[in-house]
């Protein structure tokens, strides 16, 4: 079985390689940043296993490293290295020479991910799964990425080193934005552990008249949106709002249908995800990847759709939940 950890080791190696390229170019802040970020990928399982056995210093050291990464990020400029002149011409000539063959490895990433996903789900040679059950899609994506790199090397005739170098260049241009999704998920865990969610749910229930079911429903819907905007993740908002408002007030007191409330409540949270910089992997990272001038350009583009869908969702809830 291919464990997800092996793929994490590859990520760690790639981050170290990126640190190495920056070392040669004497870009010191990036060297430290990527080298430090490689640690959780190279030693992650060992750290978590040690914590389970009561040895806490590895995760504590990692916690200190997270703070250090935050401080280093302020020293790094987004946008990567300047492009030398003639690059665009060189690429256009190469695109004309190689033609549509360039698409095969690029489309290979989704195609192979799909294929591996199906194989991982259905094929169990000798009763052994290809991937870990909880991570079939992720493992498929990781393996597909490695396979397509070799396809791309065949197509372009470039060496492995050039592939890693160009990948590193891309990573440099995303720079600290790459870290945001992980950090925000970490913040979600900290908020959960310190009782932020409970405090918000308590405040809401004290502020509204709980006997009016439409008011409670609106409070639930807006609570999902606001809490998702703050946490950057509807999955984090859902248990909090359900435990605070959905379950005790809507389902128990006002007899709402749970399936409808759950599905539509979650989707109401998704409208919030479209609006918030805290959902960095969806809203900030692509703005950087697409070299947009404003980091908030993707969010701005999503606002009207998100608001229309919010209205639709609330209307659907009002119609369906209390049938």
């Amino acid at each position, binding site marked *: 079985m291919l464990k997800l950890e092996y793929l994490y080791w590859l990520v760690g190696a790639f981050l170290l390689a990126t640190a190495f390229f920056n070392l040669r170019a004497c870009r010191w802040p990036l060297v430290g940043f990527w080298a430090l970020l490689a640690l959780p990928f190279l030693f*992650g399982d060992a750290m978590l296993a040690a914590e389970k056995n009561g040895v806490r210093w590895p995760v504590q050291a990692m916690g200190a490293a997270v703070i250090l990464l935050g401080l280093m990020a302020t020293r790094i400029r987004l946008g990567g290295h300047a492009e030398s002149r003639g690059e665009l011409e060189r690429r256009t000539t190469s695109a004309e020479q190689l033609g549509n063959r360039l698409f095969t490895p690029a489309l290979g990433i989704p195609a192979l991910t799909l294929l591996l996903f199906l194989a991982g789900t259905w094929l169990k040679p000798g009763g052994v799964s290809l991937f870990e059950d909880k991570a079939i899609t992720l493992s498929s994506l990781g393996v597909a990425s490695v396979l397509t790199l070799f396809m791309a090397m065949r197509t372009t005739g470039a060496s492995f080193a050039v592939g890693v170098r160009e990948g590193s260049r891309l990573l440099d241009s995303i720079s600290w934005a790459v870290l945001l999704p992980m950090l925000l998920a970490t913040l979600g865990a900290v908020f959960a552990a310190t009782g932020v969610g409970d405090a918000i749910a308590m405040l809401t229930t004290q502020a509204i008249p709980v006997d009016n079911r439409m008011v409670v429903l609106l409070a639930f819907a807006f609570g999902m949106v606001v809490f998702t905007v703050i946490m950057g993740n509807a999955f984090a908002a859902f248990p909090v709002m359900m435990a605070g408002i959905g379950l005790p007030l809507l389902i128990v007191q006002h007899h709402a249908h749970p399936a409808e409330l759950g599905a539509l409540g979650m989707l109401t949270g998704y409208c919030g995800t479209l609006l918030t910089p805290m959902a960095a992997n969806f809203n900030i990272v692509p703005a950087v990847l697409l070299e947009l001038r404003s980091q908030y350009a993707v969010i701005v583009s999503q606002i009207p759709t998100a608001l229309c869908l919010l209205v639709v969702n609330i209307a659907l809830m009002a119609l369906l939940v209390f049938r």
Partner: protein
Amino acid sequence: MTIADLYPLLGVAAVVLGFALRFNPVLVVVVAGLVSSIAAGLSIGDMLALLGSAFVSNRALLLFVLTLPTIGLLEYFGLRERASMWIASFRGLTFARFQIAYLGIRQVMSMLGLTHVAGHAQTVRPLVAPMSLAAAERSIGKLDEEASEKVRASAAATDNIGLFFGEDVFVAIGAVLLIQGFYARNGIVLEPLHIALWALPTAIAAFVIHAIRINLLQSSLRKQLAQRNQQREDDAQA
């Protein structure tokens, strides 16, 4: 409940303030975590352990960087340029048709659970964004920087909306299981399929609303371009 239970909310205030004052987001998030932990009365050791183990547990979010060498290599050899040349060769393909088709494909794929098949690094940057630009240049006209920015931002937005409002219809991972699990812990037993079914109306609404918006973006870009050309003609005559 006492006032002390509300102290961790200071972390939320730190987030809002930090983003409003446009500090580096990474720093804002780290500081917010520290503020919340200190306000909740955690010891330094507990706080560091909490930060560290949560960070490590969420490292799956960075697995997508494994796609970067392939994408980087292909881009070095002109993938994005080729993508726009290829799209420009289709006569009837407008910007709106292209992005609406992508929206539909992305939604159906995530309904089947294939959420990682596409994404901002995997497909949007190397393919969807340059193809959108090429389709827009061919069906609308030469884009200025502002228009190009809108077209690219719309490519990312389309990917997000397709993903979010498709995946809830899929029963085997993510959202539906989270909902079912929450109810099961509280003594309400539901079939995952029953929950997923109620995500369908919103999925359809999302497709319709966003498709209309892509069409509106196309007509507003056309109008802007026409105005600009008109102005240029007026200037030339004057």
